[in-house]
């Protein structure tokens, strides 16, 4: 888990690029605007969501917006 990249961030998003269907609802839902659709295609021909790498506060809204049960995993800072 690349936790070291976090610095001051309070959260982190792990996208399963092979599970993502590129619908973009997480990008729409993200208040911090730290998600985007990748320029690359995944195995199934979708542009999967990608975390910008910083700025996530771990709110989890993208998780609820995402229709794939296992495409996103959200981490949040402990207290």
């Amino acid at each position, binding site marked *: *888990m690349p*936790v*070291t990249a*976090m*610095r*001051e*961030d*309070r*959260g*982190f998003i792990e996208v*399963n690029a*092979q*599970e993502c*269907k*590129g*619908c*973009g*609802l997480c990008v*729409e*839902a993200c208040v911090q605007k730290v998600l985007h659709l990748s320029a690359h295609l995944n195995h*199934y021909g*979708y542009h999967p969501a990608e975390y910008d790498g910083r700025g996530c506060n*771990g709110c*989890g*809204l993208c*998780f*609820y*917006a*995402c*229709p*794939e*049960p*296992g495409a*996103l*995993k*959200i*981490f*949040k*800072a*402990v207290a």
Partner: protein
Amino acid sequence: MPELKVTHQKAECLYDSYERKGELTHQTHYCPGCGHGITMKLLAETIDELGIRDRVIMVSPVGCSVFLYYYFDTGNVQVAHGRAPAVATGLKRARPDSIVISYQGDGDLAAIGSAEILHAANRGELITCIFANNAIYGMTGGQMAPTTLLGKKTTTTPFGRDKIKDGYPLHISEVMSSLDAPVFVERVALGNTKQILAAKKAIRKAVESQVKGLGFSLVEVLSPCPTIWKQDPVEAQRFVREVMADIYPLGNKRDRTADAEPHPAPAPEPALSELPAILKLPKEPAPADAAPPNPREVDYRIKIAGFGGQGVLLLGQLLAEAGMDDGLAVSWLPSYGPEMRSGTSNCHVRLNNRPVDSPVVTRSNILIALNEPSLQKFVSLAEPGSLVLYNGDSIPAEFRREDLTMHALPFFELADEVGTAKAGNVVVLGALLEVTGLLPDETVDRAMARVVKGEKWLEIDRKALSRGKQAMAASLGKEAACHV
């Protein structure tokens, strides 16, 4: 650097991989942006949170919701189109400790399944229905559903849904909340994350109300279908929020969870040993009394047909009972239905020295036709060389077959001579025994004494039986004489 922990991930009650096809075992079958995946996720989270996974039985119907059993690692039953609430009723009643959740779309619940949901809700069944409403038949390619919005173009309303021709969008939650029994009914939407989080709360409350045993609960989820709506996922989400929610007002329609009394626990099932007494069955004969297996090679496939009221079914029952007493394996398959109202009636009887494989008699080797329509219907299915008994003075010429042994006798007139035409079926039995000797007389008499109710009738039937034997013997003698 802050320490991070996982706060949101795939629910535990969902399988790690989905065994649907060889490929894509980690993806759902839903299209990108489909609301089903979100609803499923909310439901799965609720099941995890309440710790009820081992008790849950998901009931999935027909539509895009059909594949829940590939995703939910819980109990699963997949049912016929629209019937989820009916099956859920049975599951819950048979297993009161389980948490039964039906998950249906609008083409399923609001159309073909409208009767099932209405009555399950009205009975206040202790089940939870998750109703995904995307106002269209998605899986079949976009036909109009009862929930389709006015003016919406679909494959079956190419000029748009017209209120005069096609009616109005059906408001299921409002219909449900007009009933007395439901304890929790709410309409939620997946139009943005705020709405999604509200949907989560409603789903949790609905399932909780079942866990507490309070009563029927339903959550209607306004859900996007980007593919069939021909919108991109973000647009479809906006459509749910701004257009659908306007036609289908969101919010709670019924919440009696605070003051509803839990349903009383169902009475325990009676022990198997108590059933004969409850059903008032006579005591089973001790094993010593049971007839020993019959060593004869026997395979009688008997079809009995006539008008309703001629005693067709009773005749079959007498044969089966007597056969059983004779140590044969028997089956008796009556045909019920509209024929019970003075139409035609028939039953299939099998007598065999080996276990009977099927109670259905397709090709008979004994056909008993008590009227002409029955002879007409079944004579062509009689096996070559087999026996036909017909109620009449003679076999109608058009139904004669050279390869059959056919006897005609006016059974009901003969019965009338012994007291009542009602005993005509037993006259037939007498004639049948005479011509075939298929069962010993005393066995038949014993079975008759058991099956026929009342001394008076038994006496008449005994007379009828011997009248039948006598008449057949006379007829056989005459025929023999003719042949000579």
